[in-house]
């Protein structure tokens, strides 16, 4: 980190004793909040995962049985697989759209503010409301989508979009891409705006093509923000719940049964809180592993 070096060290020297304590006091409020509100609930979840419990009067200690139950059940792997597929397509969609749009929004062309305002909209609509709207648009009887597609004679009869596994997964992905791309677009745009113009001018003089400029100037300059955006986006959507729950409740069959939906059902439909918590802990480890893998990949490209 850059603050360790240079000028800042002078400041630290003549106040070293106080400096450490002072640093702690600045992060203390935050740390306390996080310990109480995040760490404690997580450990509480860890504790619950070791019991067969209804959280009220039944607390039977079962050790790691909940974990083995989950791990020896093929259902777990199939929902992890569905979730991975779902996350892959959603994140891919976010980054493709995010890249294209942020690239254009970074240009100095007329009316860009208007487009920026429109394109940010999905981020402003609550997930629960959004999911209801899409559910309605895809309604087999009076939905707008069937109507439009039939008018354009792309389909000949109304389709039950959310009632068919093939389409339901596809639609869940589409809706989640729709909801989430503005965040990635904004993050990449922020990165693009931080690249000094002089770099491109230098590239121009050296005779670089647009593509070369993109590969050798743009990408390396925004690598850090890309890495963070990629990790966060993947983890956020891997844990996603609301939109898909409202759209399909995980169905039809298990076509869209994301792991979070699984956990929700285990907890609140079957009241197996121990098993639900155990699955949640496993999800944490998967997310953690994904984060680590990304870090490796980005570090490997460092030089």
């Amino acid at each position: 980190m850059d603050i360790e070096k240079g000028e800042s060290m002078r400041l630290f020297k003549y106040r070293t004793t106080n400096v450490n304590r002072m640093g702690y006091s600045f992060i203390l409020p935050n740390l306390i909040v996080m310990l109480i509100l995040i760490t404690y609930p997580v450990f509480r979840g860890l504790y619950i995962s070791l019991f067969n419990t209804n959280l009220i009067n039944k607390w039977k200690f079962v050790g790691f049985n909940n974990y083995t139950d989950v791990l020896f059940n093929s259902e777990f792997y199939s929902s992890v697989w569905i979730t991975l597929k779902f996350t892959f397509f959603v994140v891919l969609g976010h980054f493709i759209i995010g890249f294209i749009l942020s690239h254009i929004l970074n240009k100095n062309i007329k009316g860009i503010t208007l487009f920026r305002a429109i394109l940010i909209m999905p981020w402003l609509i609550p997930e629960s409301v959004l999911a209801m709207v899409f559910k309605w648009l895809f309604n087999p009887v009076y939905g707008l989508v069937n109507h439009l597609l039939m008018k354009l004679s792309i389909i000949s009869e109304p389709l039950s979009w959310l009632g068919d596994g093939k389409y339901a997964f596809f639609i869940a992905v589409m809706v989640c891409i729709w909801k989430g791309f503005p965040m990635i677009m904004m993050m990449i745009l922020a990165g693009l705006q931080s690249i000094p113009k002089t770099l491109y001018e230098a590239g121009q003089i050296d005779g670089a093509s647009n593509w070369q400029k993109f590969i050798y100037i743009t990408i390396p300059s925004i690598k850090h923000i890309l890495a963070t955006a990629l990790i966060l986006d993947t983890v956020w959507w891997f844990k996603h719940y609301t939109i898909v729950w409202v759209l399909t409740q995980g169905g039809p069959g298990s076509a869209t049964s994301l792991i979070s939906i699984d956990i929700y059902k285990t907890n609140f439909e079957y009241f197996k809180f121990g098993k639900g918590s155990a699955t949640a802990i496993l999800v944490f480890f998967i997310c953690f592993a994904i984060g680590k893998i990304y870090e490796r990949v980005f570090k490997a490209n460092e030089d």
Partner: protein
Amino acid sequence: MKTKKVTRNIGYYIILALFSLMVLIPVLWMVSTAFKPEVETFTIPPRWIPENPTLDSFRNIRTAYPFFTQLKNSFIVVVGSTIITVIFACFSGYGVTRFKFKGRKQFMSFLLVTQMFPSIMVLVPFYTILNKLNLINTYWGLIVVYVSMSIAFATWMITSFFKSIPISLDEAAIIDGCTRFQVFWKIVLPLTIPGLVSICIYCFINGWNEYMFASTFVTTEEMKTITVGIAELSGQYKILWNDMMAASLVASVPLVVLFVFLQKYFISGMTAGAVKN
């Protein structure tokens, strides 16, 4: 050269227009529905322009549902949690970038790790905690939960922003006789206003849109937040689409207003914050 530029710009406009259309179709559908009478929401074929436009649904959400109480609830909870989150995030952003103390890096990676816990996982533990503290069905209960939801990413964002402000400023001020807190409050903080605005918007939107926690930790009618209220408009047998869309529109107004006025800051805030890692 010039014609090439023009054709390229036309290409950009076409792409922008296509994506804008994709975004706008559901949004315009919401707007159009809000002005339809109930019968018209189910007509086949669906109609873009209402045949008999009416303000009934807007009247309904004022009289038939406790909608404005819910709007007020959302507002109190979200503003409260945003203020707390932003204050705490700023303090730690300053602390982490200005002092070299043990555990500083661990603190930053801790922030990222907290993003990896499924929120469903903390749902049950949170309930028991709030229950013990008698915070179920209270503003404070939700405020506390929303703080926990946004604080990690907010801190991460503001920290990278603080990093972009040279430490020599702090030094100069201290030599001039400022205390640490004065440096933080009077010198560094004003320079981070775009960053502050972006994390405020982030926290605000996050809280305003939250559904899962609010629907679990609030059970009484008069304490519900707006997203829960809207979701409940979809009854088991019948969904009053026009009322629901009117409610959604009204609920989106604060966000749109907030964003339209602050988007300049938001982008420059993210820009400056994002540069260094």
